[in-house]
Protein backbone atom coordinates (compact mmCIF):
# COMPACT_ATOMS: atom_id res chain seq x y z
CA UNK A 1 0.00 0.00 0.00
CA UNK A 2 2.93 2.26 0.55
CA UNK A 3 3.98 1.83 -3.04
CA UNK A 4 1.78 4.60 -4.38
CA UNK A 5 2.99 7.05 -1.79
CA UNK A 6 6.65 6.17 -2.29
CA UNK A 7 6.36 6.56 -6.05
CA UNK A 8 4.68 9.87 -5.69
CA UNK A 9 7.36 11.16 -3.34
CA UNK A 10 10.00 10.12 -5.89
CA UNK A 11 8.14 12.12 -8.50
CA UNK A 12 8.06 15.22 -6.34
CA UNK A 13 11.71 14.79 -5.56
CA UNK A 14 12.76 14.70 -9.20
CA UNK A 15 10.62 17.78 -9.75
CA UNK A 16 12.42 19.59 -6.98
CA UNK A 17 15.80 18.59 -8.38
CA UNK A 18 14.89 19.95 -11.79
CA UNK A 19 14.22 23.37 -10.29
CA UNK A 20 17.86 23.99 -9.46
CA UNK A 21 19.91 26.57 -11.26
CA UNK A 22 23.20 25.07 -12.37
CA UNK A 23 25.16 25.09 -15.59
CA UNK A 24 23.45 21.88 -16.73
CA UNK A 25 19.99 23.08 -15.74
CA UNK A 26 20.45 26.28 -17.71
CA UNK A 27 21.30 24.44 -20.93
CA UNK A 28 18.80 24.32 -23.75
CA UNK A 29 16.47 21.34 -23.18
CA UNK A 30 16.77 20.25 -26.84
CA UNK A 31 20.51 19.94 -26.42
CA UNK A 32 20.17 17.80 -23.32
CA UNK A 33 17.55 15.62 -24.99
CA UNK A 34 19.71 15.08 -28.07
CA UNK A 35 22.83 14.39 -26.01
CA UNK A 36 20.96 11.81 -23.93
CA UNK A 37 19.47 10.16 -27.00
CA UNK A 38 22.83 9.86 -28.74
CA UNK A 39 24.36 8.59 -25.51
CA UNK A 40 21.78 5.80 -25.30
CA UNK A 41 22.17 4.99 -28.98
CA UNK A 42 25.94 4.76 -28.66
CA UNK A 43 25.74 2.56 -25.55
CA UNK A 44 23.17 0.17 -26.98
CA UNK A 45 24.94 -0.13 -30.34
CA UNK A 46 27.86 -2.13 -28.92
CA UNK A 47 28.04 -5.85 -29.56
CA UNK A 48 26.60 -7.94 -26.78
CA UNK A 49 30.01 -9.12 -25.54
CA UNK A 50 31.34 -5.60 -25.11
CA UNK A 51 32.45 -4.65 -21.63
CA UNK A 52 35.60 -2.57 -21.73
CA UNK A 53 34.36 -0.26 -24.48
CA UNK A 54 31.37 0.72 -22.32
CA UNK A 55 33.37 2.08 -19.41
CA UNK A 56 34.32 5.46 -20.91
CA UNK A 57 30.61 6.20 -21.20
CA UNK A 58 30.39 6.48 -17.43
CA UNK A 59 31.96 9.89 -17.85
CA UNK A 60 28.64 11.28 -19.13
CA UNK A 61 26.51 10.47 -16.05
CA UNK A 62 29.36 11.30 -13.68
CA UNK A 63 29.92 14.74 -15.20
CA UNK A 64 26.22 15.55 -15.36
CA UNK A 65 25.60 14.35 -11.82
CA UNK A 66 28.27 16.64 -10.46
CA UNK A 67 27.75 19.68 -12.68
CA UNK A 68 24.01 19.38 -12.20
CA UNK A 69 24.47 19.08 -8.43
CA UNK A 70 22.40 15.91 -8.27
CA UNK A 71 22.51 13.44 -5.38
CA UNK A 72 23.63 9.93 -6.30
CA UNK A 73 21.65 7.92 -3.75
CA UNK A 74 18.12 8.39 -5.18
CA UNK A 75 19.37 7.52 -8.66
CA UNK A 76 20.95 4.34 -7.36
CA UNK A 77 17.78 3.50 -5.49
CA UNK A 78 15.70 3.80 -8.66
CA UNK A 79 18.27 1.68 -10.45
CA UNK A 80 17.96 -1.03 -7.81
CA UNK A 81 14.16 -1.01 -8.09
CA UNK A 82 14.21 -1.42 -11.86
CA UNK A 83 17.22 -3.74 -12.17
CA UNK A 84 15.64 -7.08 -11.15
CA UNK A 85 13.26 -7.19 -14.13
CA UNK A 86 16.04 -6.72 -16.63
CA UNK A 87 18.55 -8.94 -14.89
CA UNK A 88 15.92 -11.68 -14.71
CA UNK A 89 16.03 -11.86 -18.51
CA UNK A 90 19.77 -11.31 -18.60
CA UNK A 91 20.60 -14.11 -16.16
CA UNK A 92 19.55 -16.65 -18.78
CA UNK A 93 22.56 -15.72 -20.90
CA UNK A 94 25.08 -17.66 -18.76
CA UNK A 95 22.72 -20.65 -18.87
CA UNK A 96 22.57 -20.79 -22.65
CA UNK A 97 25.93 -19.45 -23.77
CA UNK A 98 28.81 -21.61 -22.59
CA UNK A 99 31.44 -20.58 -25.13
CA UNK A 100 34.61 -20.01 -23.16
CA UNK A 101 35.98 -16.61 -24.09
CA UNK A 102 38.20 -15.45 -21.30
CA UNK A 103 40.66 -16.98 -18.92
CA UNK A 104 41.55 -15.25 -15.67
CA UNK A 105 44.16 -17.42 -13.99
CA UNK A 106 42.53 -20.83 -13.91
CA UNK A 107 38.95 -19.60 -14.09
CA UNK A 108 37.34 -19.82 -17.52
CA UNK A 109 34.63 -17.26 -18.11
CA UNK A 110 31.89 -18.11 -20.60
CA UNK A 111 30.43 -15.76 -23.17
CA UNK A 112 27.15 -15.84 -21.29
CA UNK A 113 28.64 -14.26 -18.21
CA UNK A 114 30.39 -11.64 -20.31
CA UNK A 115 27.13 -10.66 -22.04
CA UNK A 116 25.29 -10.69 -18.72
CA UNK A 117 27.85 -8.30 -17.28
CA UNK A 118 27.53 -6.19 -20.41
CA UNK A 119 23.74 -6.02 -19.94
CA UNK A 120 24.25 -4.89 -16.34
CA UNK A 121 26.54 -2.08 -17.42
CA UNK A 122 24.14 -1.00 -20.17
CA UNK A 123 21.35 -0.98 -17.59
CA UNK A 124 23.28 1.31 -15.23
CA UNK A 125 24.23 3.68 -18.04
CA UNK A 126 20.86 3.99 -19.79
CA UNK A 127 18.76 4.29 -16.67
CA UNK A 128 20.90 6.93 -15.00
CA UNK A 129 20.98 8.88 -18.28
CA UNK A 130 17.19 8.98 -18.43
CA UNK A 131 16.82 10.02 -14.80
CA UNK A 132 19.51 12.67 -15.14
CA UNK A 133 17.72 14.12 -18.15
CA UNK A 134 14.56 14.66 -16.12
CA UNK A 135 16.33 15.78 -12.97
CA UNK A 136 18.22 18.48 -14.87
CA UNK A 137 15.47 19.53 -17.27
CA UNK A 138 12.00 19.16 -15.78
CA UNK A 139 8.86 18.20 -17.61
CA UNK A 140 7.92 21.66 -18.93
CA UNK A 141 11.26 22.13 -20.64
CA UNK A 142 11.15 18.60 -22.02
CA UNK A 143 7.72 19.41 -23.43
CA UNK A 144 9.05 22.49 -25.20
CA UNK A 145 12.01 20.47 -26.51
CA UNK A 146 9.66 17.82 -27.87
CA UNK A 147 7.60 20.52 -29.53
CA UNK A 148 10.71 21.95 -31.14
CA UNK A 149 11.86 18.64 -32.57
CA UNK A 150 8.48 18.22 -34.21
CA UNK A 151 6.30 16.15 -31.89
CA UNK A 152 2.62 16.98 -32.57
CA UNK A 153 1.28 19.58 -30.17
CA UNK A 154 -1.62 17.49 -28.95
CA UNK A 155 0.83 14.87 -27.68
CA UNK A 156 2.90 17.45 -25.82
CA UNK A 157 -0.24 19.01 -24.33
CA UNK A 158 -1.42 15.57 -23.27
CA UNK A 159 1.94 14.89 -21.63
CA UNK A 160 1.94 18.18 -19.71
CA UNK A 161 -1.72 17.97 -18.75
CA UNK A 162 -1.32 14.44 -17.48
CA UNK A 163 1.77 15.30 -15.53
CA UNK A 164 0.00 18.24 -13.92
CA UNK A 165 -3.00 16.20 -12.80
CA UNK A 166 -0.92 13.21 -11.82
CA UNK A 167 0.04 15.12 -8.71
CA UNK A 168 -3.55 16.03 -7.91
CA UNK A 169 -4.91 12.54 -8.48
CA UNK A 170 -2.04 10.82 -6.71
CA UNK A 171 -2.85 12.80 -3.57
CA UNK A 172 -6.51 11.93 -3.86
CA UNK A 173 -5.77 8.24 -4.46
CA UNK A 174 -3.45 8.08 -1.51
CA UNK A 175 -6.22 9.49 0.70
CA UNK A 176 -8.74 7.01 -0.69
CA UNK A 177 -6.49 4.01 -0.30
CA UNK A 178 -5.52 5.08 3.21
CA UNK A 179 -9.18 5.45 4.13
CA UNK A 180 -9.87 2.01 2.66
CA UNK A 181 -7.04 0.28 4.47
CA UNK A 182 -7.96 1.92 7.79
CA UNK A 183 -11.40 0.36 7.48
CA UNK A 184 -10.31 -3.08 6.28
CA UNK A 185 -8.61 -5.87 8.16
CA UNK A 186 -6.95 -7.56 5.26
CA UNK A 187 -3.85 -5.44 5.22
CA UNK A 188 -2.17 -5.27 1.84
CA UNK A 189 -4.24 -4.56 -1.21
CA UNK A 190 -7.84 -3.90 -2.13
CA UNK A 191 -10.22 -6.86 -1.70
CA UNK A 192 -11.95 -8.37 -4.70
CA UNK A 193 -15.41 -7.14 -3.76
CA UNK A 194 -14.22 -3.55 -3.64
CA UNK A 195 -12.29 -3.59 -6.93
CA UNK A 196 -15.08 -2.17 -9.03
CA UNK A 197 -16.53 0.29 -6.57
CA UNK A 198 -13.24 1.74 -5.33
CA UNK A 199 -11.70 2.25 -8.73
CA UNK A 200 -15.05 3.11 -10.29
CA UNK A 201 -15.71 5.86 -7.74
CA UNK A 202 -12.27 7.26 -8.37
CA UNK A 203 -12.90 7.13 -12.11
CA UNK A 204 -16.22 8.96 -11.85
CA UNK A 205 -14.61 11.56 -9.65
CA UNK A 206 -11.77 11.97 -12.12
CA UNK A 207 -14.14 12.43 -15.03
CA UNK A 208 -16.11 14.98 -13.01
CA UNK A 209 -12.89 16.75 -12.29
CA UNK A 210 -12.01 16.78 -15.98
CA UNK A 211 -15.37 18.39 -16.69
CA UNK A 212 -14.81 21.03 -14.01
CA UNK A 213 -11.37 21.72 -15.46
CA UNK A 214 -12.93 22.12 -18.87
CA UNK A 215 -15.54 24.52 -17.47
CA UNK A 216 -12.92 26.62 -15.78
CA UNK A 217 -10.82 26.62 -18.93
CA UNK A 218 -13.84 27.96 -20.79
CA UNK A 219 -14.33 30.61 -18.11
CA UNK A 220 -10.79 31.75 -18.75
CA UNK A 221 -11.31 32.13 -22.46
CA UNK A 222 -10.25 28.71 -23.75
CA UNK A 223 -10.95 28.59 -27.49
CA UNK A 224 -9.73 25.09 -28.28
CA UNK A 225 -6.14 26.18 -28.67
CA UNK A 226 -3.68 25.51 -25.87
CA UNK A 227 -0.87 28.03 -25.98
CA UNK A 228 2.46 26.77 -24.74
CA UNK A 229 5.21 29.14 -23.78
CA UNK A 230 8.33 28.46 -25.76
CA UNK A 231 11.37 29.97 -24.16
CA UNK A 232 15.00 28.89 -24.20
CA UNK A 233 17.25 30.12 -26.93
CA UNK A 234 20.12 28.22 -28.43
CA UNK A 235 23.43 29.74 -27.34
CA UNK A 236 26.97 28.87 -28.32
CA UNK A 237 27.40 27.16 -24.93
CA UNK A 238 24.57 24.80 -25.80
CA UNK A 239 26.06 23.96 -29.16
CA UNK A 240 29.48 23.51 -27.59
CA UNK A 241 28.06 21.18 -24.95
CA UNK A 242 26.33 19.03 -27.53
CA UNK A 243 29.30 19.02 -29.91
CA UNK A 244 31.72 18.02 -27.16
CA UNK A 245 29.61 15.09 -26.09
CA UNK A 246 28.90 13.95 -29.63
CA UNK A 247 32.61 13.94 -30.43
CA UNK A 248 33.33 12.13 -27.19
CA UNK A 249 30.68 9.48 -27.85
CA UNK A 250 31.96 8.99 -31.38
CA UNK A 251 35.54 8.65 -30.22
CA UNK A 252 34.88 6.17 -27.43
CA UNK A 253 32.46 4.30 -29.69
CA UNK A 254 35.10 3.85 -32.38
CA UNK A 255 38.18 3.41 -30.22
CA UNK A 256 38.34 1.19 -27.21
CA UNK A 257 39.99 3.63 -24.86
CA UNK A 258 40.31 1.33 -21.82
CA UNK A 259 42.03 -1.26 -23.95
CA UNK A 260 44.46 1.24 -25.43
CA UNK A 261 45.16 2.57 -21.97
CA UNK A 262 45.68 -0.90 -20.57
CA UNK A 263 48.00 -1.87 -23.39
CA UNK A 264 49.98 1.27 -22.82
CA UNK A 265 50.33 0.49 -19.13
CA UNK A 266 50.97 -3.24 -19.37
CA UNK A 267 52.99 -3.00 -22.53
CA UNK A 268 51.25 -5.71 -24.57
CA UNK A 269 50.87 -5.26 -28.27
Amino acid at each position, binding site marked *: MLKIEANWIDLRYLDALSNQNTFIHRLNPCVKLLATLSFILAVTSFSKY*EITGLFPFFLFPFVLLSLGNLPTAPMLKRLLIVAPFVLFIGIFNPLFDHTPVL*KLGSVVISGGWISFFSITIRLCLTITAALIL*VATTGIDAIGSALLRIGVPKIIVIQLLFMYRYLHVLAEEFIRTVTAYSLRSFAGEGV*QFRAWGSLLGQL*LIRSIDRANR*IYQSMLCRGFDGEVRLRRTSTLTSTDIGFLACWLVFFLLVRCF*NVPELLGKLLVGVN
Partner: protein
Amino acid sequence: MHMADALISPAVGGAMWAASAGIAAYAAKKVQNDLDDRKIPLMGVLGAFVFAAQMINFTIPGTGSSGHLGGGLLLAILLGPQAAFLTIASILTIQALFFADGGILALGCNIFNMGFLTCFVAYPLIYKPLTGNNPSQGRLFLGSILAAVIGLQFGAFAVVLETLFSGISELPFTTFVLLMQPIHLAIGLVEGLVIAAVVLFIKKEAPEILQKTAAGQPFGAISIKKVVIALFIATLFTGGALSWFASSNPDGLEWSIAGVTGEDELKAPEGIHGFFAELQEKTAFLPDYNFNKSNEPAAASTEQEKSSWPSVDKGTSFAGIVGSLLTLALAFSIGKGLRRLSRG
Protein backbone atom coordinates in the same frame (compact mmCIF):
# COMPACT_ATOMS: atom_id res chain seq x y z
CA MET B 1 6.32 -5.93 -19.61
CA HIS B 2 8.24 -2.67 -19.83
CA MET B 3 11.31 -3.28 -21.95
CA ALA B 4 14.57 -1.64 -20.94
CA ASP B 5 17.30 -0.18 -23.10
CA ALA B 6 19.80 -2.70 -21.82
CA LEU B 7 18.19 -5.55 -23.71
CA ILE B 8 17.47 -4.02 -27.09
CA SER B 9 19.56 -3.01 -30.07
CA PRO B 10 19.37 0.41 -31.74
CA ALA B 11 18.00 -1.17 -34.93
CA VAL B 12 15.01 -2.72 -33.19
CA GLY B 13 14.54 0.29 -30.91
CA GLY B 14 14.72 2.66 -33.87
CA ALA B 15 12.34 0.64 -36.01
CA MET B 16 9.79 0.47 -33.22
CA TRP B 17 10.24 4.18 -32.51
CA ALA B 18 9.44 4.88 -36.15
CA ALA B 19 6.42 2.60 -36.08
CA SER B 20 5.06 4.12 -32.86
CA ALA B 21 5.77 7.66 -34.03
CA GLY B 22 3.85 6.97 -37.22
CA ILE B 23 0.85 5.65 -35.33
CA ALA B 24 1.05 8.54 -32.87
CA ALA B 25 1.08 11.07 -35.71
CA TYR B 26 -1.98 9.40 -37.21
CA ALA B 27 -3.77 9.31 -33.85
CA ALA B 28 -2.80 12.92 -33.10
CA LYS B 29 -4.23 14.04 -36.42
CA LYS B 30 -7.45 12.16 -35.80
CA VAL B 31 -7.87 13.58 -32.32
CA GLN B 32 -6.99 17.10 -33.42
CA ASN B 33 -9.50 16.98 -36.24
CA ASP B 34 -12.17 16.12 -33.74
CA LEU B 35 -13.88 19.33 -32.84
CA ASP B 36 -14.57 18.40 -29.23
CA ASP B 37 -12.31 20.51 -26.98
CA ARG B 38 -13.54 18.63 -23.95
CA LYS B 39 -11.14 15.81 -24.73
CA ILE B 40 -8.05 17.87 -23.92
CA PRO B 41 -8.59 17.98 -20.15
CA LEU B 42 -10.32 14.59 -20.19
CA MET B 43 -7.37 12.80 -21.78
CA GLY B 44 -4.96 14.42 -19.36
CA VAL B 45 -6.99 13.59 -16.29
CA LEU B 46 -7.74 10.03 -17.40
CA GLY B 47 -4.06 9.49 -18.12
CA ALA B 48 -3.28 10.61 -14.60
CA PHE B 49 -6.09 8.39 -13.36
CA VAL B 50 -4.63 5.29 -14.99
CA PHE B 51 -1.15 6.20 -13.86
CA ALA B 52 -2.18 6.60 -10.26
CA ALA B 53 -4.55 3.63 -10.35
CA GLN B 54 -1.76 1.37 -11.57
CA MET B 55 0.02 1.97 -8.30
CA ILE B 56 -2.88 0.53 -6.28
CA ASN B 57 -2.56 -3.15 -5.37
CA PHE B 58 -5.60 -5.34 -5.92
CA THR B 59 -5.54 -8.50 -3.84
CA ILE B 60 -6.24 -11.61 -5.89
CA PRO B 61 -8.70 -13.84 -4.01
CA GLY B 62 -7.30 -17.14 -2.85
CA THR B 63 -3.69 -16.12 -3.34
CA GLY B 64 -1.35 -13.91 -1.41
CA SER B 65 -0.35 -11.87 -4.43
CA SER B 66 -1.82 -8.77 -5.96
CA GLY B 67 -2.49 -7.45 -9.44
CA HIS B 68 -2.87 -4.09 -11.11
CA LEU B 69 -5.10 -2.28 -13.51
CA GLY B 70 -4.33 -2.69 -17.20
CA GLY B 71 -4.51 0.84 -18.48
CA GLY B 72 -4.64 0.61 -22.26
CA LEU B 73 -7.92 -1.22 -22.64
CA LEU B 74 -9.75 0.84 -20.00
CA LEU B 75 -8.64 4.03 -21.74
CA ALA B 76 -9.73 2.69 -25.11
CA ILE B 77 -13.15 1.85 -23.64
CA LEU B 78 -13.49 5.34 -22.14
CA LEU B 79 -11.85 7.50 -24.79
CA GLY B 80 -11.83 5.55 -28.03
CA PRO B 81 -8.65 4.09 -29.53
CA GLN B 82 -6.89 7.17 -30.94
CA ALA B 83 -7.12 9.31 -27.84
CA ALA B 84 -6.38 6.25 -25.69
CA PHE B 85 -3.25 5.54 -27.70
CA LEU B 86 -1.94 9.06 -27.16
CA THR B 87 -2.78 8.86 -23.47
CA ILE B 88 -1.01 5.52 -23.02
CA ALA B 89 1.98 6.87 -24.93
CA SER B 90 2.21 9.82 -22.54
CA ILE B 91 1.89 7.52 -19.52
CA LEU B 92 4.72 5.34 -20.80
CA THR B 93 6.85 8.42 -21.48
CA ILE B 94 6.44 9.69 -17.94
CA GLN B 95 7.16 6.21 -16.60
CA ALA B 96 10.33 5.99 -18.68
CA LEU B 97 11.55 9.45 -17.71
CA PHE B 98 10.61 9.71 -14.07
CA PHE B 99 10.59 6.13 -12.90
CA ALA B 100 13.12 4.58 -15.29
CA ASP B 101 10.41 2.01 -15.94
CA GLY B 102 11.22 1.07 -19.52
CA GLY B 103 13.99 2.79 -21.41
CA ILE B 104 14.01 5.81 -23.69
CA LEU B 105 15.23 3.84 -26.71
CA ALA B 106 12.78 1.09 -25.79
CA LEU B 107 9.91 3.59 -25.53
CA GLY B 108 8.89 2.88 -29.13
CA CYS B 109 8.68 -0.82 -28.35
CA ASN B 110 6.71 -0.20 -25.17
CA ILE B 111 4.24 2.16 -26.82
CA PHE B 112 3.71 -0.37 -29.58
CA ASN B 113 3.37 -3.36 -27.24
CA MET B 114 1.10 -1.75 -24.69
CA GLY B 115 -0.54 1.01 -26.69
CA PHE B 116 -0.98 -0.08 -30.26
CA LEU B 117 -1.74 -3.72 -29.55
CA THR B 118 -4.42 -2.91 -26.97
CA CYS B 119 -5.96 0.22 -28.52
CA PHE B 120 -5.83 -0.71 -32.19
CA VAL B 121 -5.94 -4.50 -32.05
CA ALA B 122 -7.55 -5.84 -28.87
CA TYR B 123 -10.13 -3.05 -28.52
CA PRO B 124 -11.57 -2.81 -32.05
CA LEU B 125 -11.18 -6.48 -32.95
CA ILE B 126 -12.22 -8.12 -29.68
CA TYR B 127 -13.92 -5.75 -27.23
CA LYS B 128 -16.01 -3.83 -29.76
CA PRO B 129 -17.51 -6.79 -31.64
CA LEU B 130 -18.20 -8.64 -28.38
CA THR B 131 -19.94 -5.79 -26.60
CA GLY B 132 -21.69 -3.94 -29.41
CA ASN B 133 -23.70 -0.79 -28.87
CA ASN B 134 -25.96 -1.74 -25.99
CA PRO B 135 -24.17 -4.52 -24.17
CA SER B 136 -25.46 -6.72 -21.38
CA GLN B 137 -23.49 -7.18 -18.17
CA GLY B 138 -22.27 -10.59 -19.25
CA ARG B 139 -21.04 -9.31 -22.58
CA LEU B 140 -19.21 -6.40 -20.96
CA PHE B 141 -17.58 -8.80 -18.54
CA LEU B 142 -16.56 -11.26 -21.24
CA GLY B 143 -15.41 -8.54 -23.63
CA SER B 144 -13.23 -6.83 -21.02
CA ILE B 145 -11.55 -10.01 -19.91
CA LEU B 146 -10.99 -11.47 -23.37
CA ALA B 147 -9.68 -8.21 -24.78
CA ALA B 148 -7.36 -7.70 -21.81
CA VAL B 149 -6.01 -11.25 -21.95
CA ILE B 150 -5.54 -11.39 -25.71
CA GLY B 151 -4.11 -7.86 -25.88
CA LEU B 152 -1.55 -8.73 -23.24
CA GLN B 153 -0.69 -12.00 -24.96
CA PHE B 154 0.05 -10.05 -28.14
CA GLY B 155 2.11 -7.60 -26.12
CA ALA B 156 4.11 -10.34 -24.43
CA PHE B 157 4.74 -12.01 -27.76
CA ALA B 158 5.93 -8.70 -29.21
CA VAL B 159 8.34 -8.38 -26.27
CA VAL B 160 9.71 -11.82 -27.11
CA LEU B 161 10.17 -10.96 -30.78
CA GLU B 162 11.76 -7.58 -30.09
CA THR B 163 14.16 -9.05 -27.56
CA LEU B 164 14.99 -11.89 -29.92
CA PHE B 165 15.70 -9.59 -32.87
CA SER B 166 17.88 -7.40 -30.68
CA GLY B 167 20.14 -10.36 -30.01
CA ILE B 168 21.37 -9.17 -26.61
CA SER B 169 19.61 -11.88 -24.64
CA GLU B 170 20.60 -15.49 -25.27
CA LEU B 171 17.15 -16.85 -24.41
CA PRO B 172 16.01 -19.22 -27.15
CA PHE B 173 12.68 -18.41 -28.76
CA THR B 174 10.71 -21.34 -27.35
CA THR B 175 12.00 -20.93 -23.80
CA PHE B 176 11.27 -17.22 -23.85
CA VAL B 177 7.77 -17.75 -25.23
CA LEU B 178 7.08 -20.42 -22.63
CA LEU B 179 8.33 -18.05 -19.97
CA MET B 180 6.40 -14.98 -21.08
CA GLN B 181 3.03 -16.17 -22.35
CA PRO B 182 1.80 -18.12 -19.27
CA ILE B 183 2.87 -15.37 -16.86
CA HIS B 184 1.07 -12.79 -18.93
CA LEU B 185 -1.97 -15.03 -19.24
CA ALA B 186 -2.32 -14.81 -15.46
CA ILE B 187 -1.55 -11.08 -15.38
CA GLY B 188 -3.97 -10.45 -18.24
CA LEU B 189 -6.71 -12.33 -16.46
CA VAL B 190 -6.34 -10.21 -13.34
CA GLU B 191 -6.11 -7.00 -15.35
CA GLY B 192 -9.19 -8.03 -17.27
CA LEU B 193 -11.06 -8.73 -14.03
CA VAL B 194 -10.18 -5.30 -12.65
CA ILE B 195 -11.28 -3.63 -15.89
CA ALA B 196 -14.48 -5.69 -15.93
CA ALA B 197 -15.21 -4.71 -12.32
CA VAL B 198 -14.75 -1.03 -13.13
CA VAL B 199 -16.72 -1.17 -16.36
CA LEU B 200 -19.62 -2.98 -14.68
CA PHE B 201 -19.60 -0.46 -11.84
CA ILE B 202 -19.62 2.42 -14.30
CA LYS B 203 -22.46 0.81 -16.23
CA LYS B 204 -24.48 0.65 -13.04
CA GLU B 205 -23.62 4.05 -11.61
CA ALA B 206 -22.93 6.29 -14.57
CA PRO B 207 -23.99 4.49 -17.75
CA GLU B 208 -23.85 7.67 -19.81
CA ILE B 209 -20.05 7.52 -19.76
CA LEU B 210 -19.99 4.19 -21.56
CA GLN B 211 -22.85 5.05 -23.88
CA LYS B 212 -21.08 8.12 -25.13
CA THR B 213 -17.99 6.23 -26.20
CA ALA B 214 -19.95 3.25 -27.50
CA ALA B 215 -21.87 5.62 -29.76
CA GLY B 216 -18.53 7.14 -30.64
CA GLN B 217 -19.54 10.48 -29.28
CA PRO B 218 -16.67 12.44 -27.97
CA PHE B 219 -14.04 10.78 -30.06
CA GLY B 220 -15.69 9.45 -33.17
CA ALA B 221 -16.06 5.88 -34.34
CA ILE B 222 -12.90 4.25 -35.59
CA SER B 223 -12.68 3.01 -39.11
CA ILE B 224 -11.38 -0.51 -39.33
CA LYS B 225 -9.98 0.16 -42.79
CA LYS B 226 -7.63 2.83 -41.51
CA VAL B 227 -6.55 0.64 -38.62
CA VAL B 228 -5.71 -2.14 -41.02
CA ILE B 229 -3.77 0.25 -43.24
CA ALA B 230 -1.83 1.63 -40.26
CA LEU B 231 -1.12 -1.91 -39.11
CA PHE B 232 0.05 -2.87 -42.57
CA ILE B 233 2.39 0.11 -42.82
CA ALA B 234 3.77 -0.51 -39.36
CA THR B 235 4.36 -4.17 -40.20
CA LEU B 236 6.03 -3.31 -43.46
CA PHE B 237 8.24 -0.76 -41.80
CA THR B 238 9.15 -2.98 -38.91
CA GLY B 239 9.72 -5.94 -41.17
CA GLY B 240 11.94 -3.92 -43.46
CA ALA B 241 14.00 -2.44 -40.68
CA LEU B 242 14.27 -5.74 -38.88
CA SER B 243 15.39 -7.65 -41.92
CA TRP B 244 17.98 -4.96 -42.56
CA PHE B 245 19.16 -5.53 -39.05
CA ALA B 246 19.08 -9.30 -39.41
CA SER B 247 21.19 -9.14 -42.53
CA SER B 248 23.71 -6.85 -40.86
CA ASN B 249 24.13 -9.21 -37.96
CA PRO B 250 23.83 -12.67 -39.40
CA ASP B 251 25.30 -14.81 -36.65
CA GLY B 252 23.28 -17.91 -37.35
CA LEU B 253 22.89 -17.14 -41.01
CA GLU B 254 26.58 -16.86 -41.64
CA TRP B 255 27.19 -20.07 -39.83
CA SER B 256 24.70 -21.95 -41.95
CA ILE B 257 26.14 -20.39 -45.10
CA ALA B 258 29.53 -21.69 -44.10
CA GLY B 259 27.98 -25.10 -43.70
CA VAL B 260 26.38 -25.02 -47.11
CA THR B 261 29.15 -23.53 -49.23
CA GLY B 262 32.09 -24.82 -47.29
CA GLU B 263 33.54 -21.32 -47.30
CA ASP B 264 33.81 -19.12 -44.28
CA GLU B 265 32.40 -16.06 -45.89
CA LEU B 266 30.63 -15.12 -49.02
CA LYS B 267 32.35 -12.45 -51.04
CA ALA B 268 30.40 -9.26 -50.82
CA PRO B 269 29.97 -7.42 -54.09
CA GLU B 270 31.86 -4.18 -54.74
CA GLY B 271 30.26 -0.76 -55.03
CA ILE B 272 27.54 0.44 -52.73
CA HIS B 273 27.46 -2.84 -50.87
CA GLY B 274 31.16 -2.67 -50.25
CA PHE B 275 30.83 0.89 -49.09
CA PHE B 276 28.22 -0.06 -46.53
CA ALA B 277 30.25 -3.02 -45.45
CA GLU B 278 33.17 -0.74 -44.83
CA LEU B 279 31.03 1.81 -43.07
CA GLN B 280 29.55 -0.85 -40.88
CA GLU B 281 32.93 -2.24 -40.10
CA LYS B 282 34.16 1.19 -39.11
CA THR B 283 31.22 2.03 -36.92
CA ALA B 284 30.43 -1.30 -35.36
CA PHE B 285 33.49 -3.45 -35.21
CA LEU B 286 36.42 -1.20 -34.61
CA PRO B 287 36.15 -1.56 -30.86
CA ASP B 288 36.13 -5.32 -31.06
CA TYR B 289 39.44 -6.06 -29.48
CA ASN B 290 41.56 -5.98 -32.58
CA PHE B 291 42.03 -2.70 -34.33
CA ASN B 292 44.25 -3.61 -37.19
CA LYS B 293 41.80 -5.68 -39.15
CA SER B 294 39.68 -2.73 -40.09
CA ASN B 295 42.25 -1.76 -42.69
CA GLU B 296 41.36 -4.75 -44.82
CA PRO B 297 39.67 -4.21 -48.18
CA ALA B 298 36.06 -3.22 -48.24
CA ALA B 299 35.03 -6.47 -49.82
CA ALA B 300 35.74 -8.36 -46.62
CA SER B 301 32.75 -9.45 -44.69
CA THR B 302 31.71 -7.43 -41.70
CA GLU B 303 31.45 -10.37 -39.42
CA GLN B 304 34.95 -11.66 -39.26
CA GLU B 305 35.90 -9.57 -36.28
CA LYS B 306 33.08 -11.05 -34.35
CA SER B 307 34.10 -14.59 -35.13
CA SER B 308 37.58 -13.78 -33.93
CA TRP B 309 36.21 -12.69 -30.58
CA PRO B 310 36.52 -15.95 -28.67
CA SER B 311 40.19 -16.29 -29.55
CA VAL B 312 41.17 -13.34 -27.41
CA ASP B 313 44.61 -13.79 -25.97
CA LYS B 314 45.34 -13.43 -22.32
CA GLY B 315 47.50 -10.35 -22.64
CA THR B 316 44.75 -8.40 -24.33
CA SER B 317 42.12 -9.34 -21.79
CA PHE B 318 44.36 -8.42 -18.89
CA ALA B 319 45.12 -5.12 -20.55
CA GLY B 320 41.39 -4.69 -21.07
CA ILE B 321 40.65 -5.15 -17.39
CA VAL B 322 43.38 -2.80 -16.23
CA GLY B 323 42.32 -0.21 -18.77
CA SER B 324 38.67 -0.48 -17.82
CA LEU B 325 39.31 0.04 -14.15
CA LEU B 326 41.50 2.99 -14.95
CA THR B 327 38.86 4.50 -17.25
CA LEU B 328 36.18 4.08 -14.64
CA ALA B 329 38.39 5.69 -12.01
CA LEU B 330 39.17 8.52 -14.39
CA ALA B 331 35.54 9.14 -15.26
CA PHE B 332 34.61 9.07 -11.61
CA SER B 333 37.35 11.45 -10.52
CA ILE B 334 36.56 13.88 -13.32
CA GLY B 335 33.00 13.90 -12.05
CA LYS B 336 34.15 14.40 -8.46
CA GLY B 337 36.54 17.13 -9.47
CA LEU B 338 33.84 18.98 -11.36
CA ARG B 339 31.53 18.80 -8.37
CA ARG B 340 34.17 20.31 -6.16
CA LEU B 341 34.86 22.98 -8.74
CA SER B 342 31.22 23.89 -9.17
CA ARG B 343 30.79 24.13 -5.42
CA GLY B 344 34.00 25.94 -4.72
